[in-house]
């Protein structure tokens, strides 16, 4: 390496960290050695030509780029029939595609901005200062959503309710603080799972996972935050006009004497359709939350041999997913991409696909891997993007469109999180004092500290937090008997330390940047109450022959 170049590199580094000057001698040597040790890649024009031939052959063979048009045309295909009444399905489907304002943006000639302005009856503040700051987003005046602070109490833990049906959402309504128990809400309970048993991770809340007392230590860089105001987004959902349009067809129908016109003020909340074929899918439109879910039409996915297993464990064993059954990430993404392409789903507002490999964390720690229950489904996630930044859930996991793959059948079994991109935005005051933010991160942010309430042996595990990155985080605000989905600017601190002695699930600590949320967080970051050692905690023990493994949520 040339002396000048070396000098330039060092000067660039000193500008940011002058303490490096003290080590100039050793640094010069290290940089020179790094440079000198550059391996010979054996790259030649002949090699480039050889690879090019391989690539271009595949390109010509038909590895064509997928189309970008987003439409729900797949719904119009003849293969989808309404269970019970094909004729009604066709009529209803046409209505869904052409009448529902919530889906009008899917049509190239739709005027989304007008739709939002005219049909959004949930927006309390109509003080619009800019009708559209990008496709699907209407900008409102500052603080238009009112106080965000109250949402802390109302939000539903880290649960991904966008991926719930409306019924599930209702059942997931916030509970009173008493029912959360000992000041510990559901959001930071690590749920245990019993390895070797099916049921997709269903657990008994009474089986308490081993918690460990932890201390977070920020070891990242000092950042300077200059953004005094930042946009908060609210997703727009539901439209009464759409359901009444849909019902105009249904009200004249008579089902075996039942006269639909005798009912008043009807509103469509759901529409379910299913493919009547082997490995067919079921499509559910949730009009209350403007979401679409696709799942297996379970009757068409049955495995007769497994259905006949009864209590024969050896038989069940044959149908357990083994690690070797799990395709590579790239293969899973390819399957998912194909499904997305086949159904013309628009990924304009989603980032690059990634595989949800959370299960591997517990699997790697399982002492008996053969007994570990590997889930039958694995998800490929396309994170929702807002302003060029990925949206995360409150645990720091990517949040967006999830395509679910059935590992036993090695086929895509559905998706959830598909929703029209319709938001309002409003600016809120952001915190610029980074020291305040990282102190809140060191306090565990919303989740506080995990505490070993059952087997506390006084051991404190130190967890390092690295330099945070900026992201939007999905929050739920319980307001007017409904949940509003908000996207809040936040800093995401990566958890750098992995425990070898115990499972530790949280991969990042999320701290909102909105000032009023920080005020509320600080007020609520009180120490976690110590358990009273004399009081017997009623815990239902698992059967003696079962080993309880903690599991990430």
């Amino acid at each position, binding site marked *: 390496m040339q002396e000048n170049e070396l000098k330039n590199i060092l000067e660039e580094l000193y500008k940011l960290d002058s303490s490096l000057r003290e080590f100039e001698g050793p640094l010069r040597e290290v940089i020179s050695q790094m440079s000198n040790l*550059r391996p010979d890649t054996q*790259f030649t024009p002949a090699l480039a030509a050889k690879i090019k031939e391989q690539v271009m052959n595949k390109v010509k063979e038909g590895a064509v*780029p997928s189309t970008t048009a987003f439409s729900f045309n797949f719904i119009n295909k003849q293969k989808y029939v309404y269970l019970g009444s094909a004729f009604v399905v066709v009529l209803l489907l046409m209505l869904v595609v052409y009448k529902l304002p919530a889906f009008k943006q899917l049509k190239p000639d739709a005027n989304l901005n007008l739709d939002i302005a005219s049909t959004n009856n949930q927006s309390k503040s109509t003080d619009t200062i800019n009708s559209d700051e990008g496709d699907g987003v209407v900008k409102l005046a500052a603080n238009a959503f009112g106080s965000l602070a109250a949402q802390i109490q109302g939000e539903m833990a880290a649960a991904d309710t966008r991926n719930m049906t409306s019924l599930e959402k209702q059942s997931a309504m916030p509970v009173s603080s008493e029912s959360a128990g000992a000041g510990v809400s559901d959001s930071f309970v690590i749920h245990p799972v019993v390895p070797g048993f099916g049921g997709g991770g269903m657990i008994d809340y009474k089986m308490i996972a081993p918690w460990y007392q932890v201390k977070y230590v920020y070891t990242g860089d000092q950042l300077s935050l200059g953004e005094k105001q930042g946009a908060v987004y609210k997703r727009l959902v539901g439209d009464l006009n759409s359901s009444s349009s849909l019902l105009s067809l249904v009200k004249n129908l008579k089902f075996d004497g039942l006269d639909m016109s005798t009912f008043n003020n009807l509103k469509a909340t759901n529409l379910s359709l299913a493919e009547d074929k082997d490995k067919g899918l079921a499509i559910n439109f949730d009009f209350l939350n403007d979401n679409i879910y696709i799942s297996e039409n379970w009757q068409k996915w049955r495995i007769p041999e497994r259905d006949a297993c009864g209590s024969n464990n050896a038989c069940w064993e044959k149908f357990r997913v083994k690690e070797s059954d799990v395709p590579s990430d790239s293969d899973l993404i390819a399957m998912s991409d194909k499904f997305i392409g086949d159904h013309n789903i628009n990924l304009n507002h989603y980032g690059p696909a990634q595989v949800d490999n959370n299960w591997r964390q517990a699997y790697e720690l399982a002492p008996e891997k053969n007994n570990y229950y590997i889930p039958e489904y694995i998800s490929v996630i396309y994170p929702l993007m807002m302003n060029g930044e990925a949206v995360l859930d409150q645990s720091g996991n990517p949040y967006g469109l999830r395509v679910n793959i059935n590992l036993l059948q090695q086929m895509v079994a559905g998706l959830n999180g598909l929703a029209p991109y319709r938001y309002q935005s409003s600016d809120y005051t952001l915190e610029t004092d980074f020291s305040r933010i990282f102190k809140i991160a060191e306090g565990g942010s919303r989740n506080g500290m995990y505490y070993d309430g059952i087997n506390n042996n006084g051991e404190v595990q130190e967890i390092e937090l690295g330099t945070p990155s900026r992201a939007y985080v999905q929050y739920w605000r319980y307001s007017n008997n409904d949940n509003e989905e908000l996207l809040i600017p936040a800093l995401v601190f990566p958890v750098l330390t992995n425990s070898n002695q115990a499972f530790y699930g949280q991969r990042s600590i999320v701290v909102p940047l909105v000032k009023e949320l920080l005020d509320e967080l600080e007020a609520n970051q009180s120490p976690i109450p110590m358990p009273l050692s004399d009081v017997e905690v009623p815990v239902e023990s698992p059967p003696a022959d079962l080993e309880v493994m903690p599991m990430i949520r």
Partner: protein
Amino acid sequence: MNTKPETELVNELVKASQDGANDAFAQLYDIYIKKIYNFIYYKTLNSTVAEDICSQVFVKAWQRLSQFKGGSFSAWLYAIARNSVSDYYRHENQHLNIDDCWDLSDKDDFLARIDQGLNLDKIKEAMKVLKNEEREILMMRFWLDLPFKEIAEQLEKKEGAVKMACGRALKNLKHNMPLVVFMLLPELINICKKMN
């Protein structure tokens, strides 16, 4: 010879490729093949593996072109390459959490998988102390000769953050390199001879 600035040319080629023009994609290939191949090689140190992965990267890029929505095309391409290398090692190593050859835990395994004659086994001990991202920054700066600004673009980070990480990595190496360099000296001379 095309006199347009590279970014403008790349943007035009990407657009044409998205519209299905194979020849435009072939030009993109010509622009990036060396950088991408070298990047993959530094993460695998095996020419056969690097060749296979490199081929996959460009095919994947073609297949997913519709998902590229602007920004830095090279950063997007590097991301595909990085993920493809991770996928390769995770697939080949029973899904252990390995991102590149430098993560191979066993020295013999490391040596068995890299090209013969590289003699990098001892520097591995120094590289192992670095985080994957720090290692990547050092590779990009000192092996791929990319300026910090471009590295920041490829990693979608701020330039200052990349420099800080580089400084940290060098500080770490400072503690681990002297012994390594001493042990490597004869091998180093051989490598330098080869390079000359």
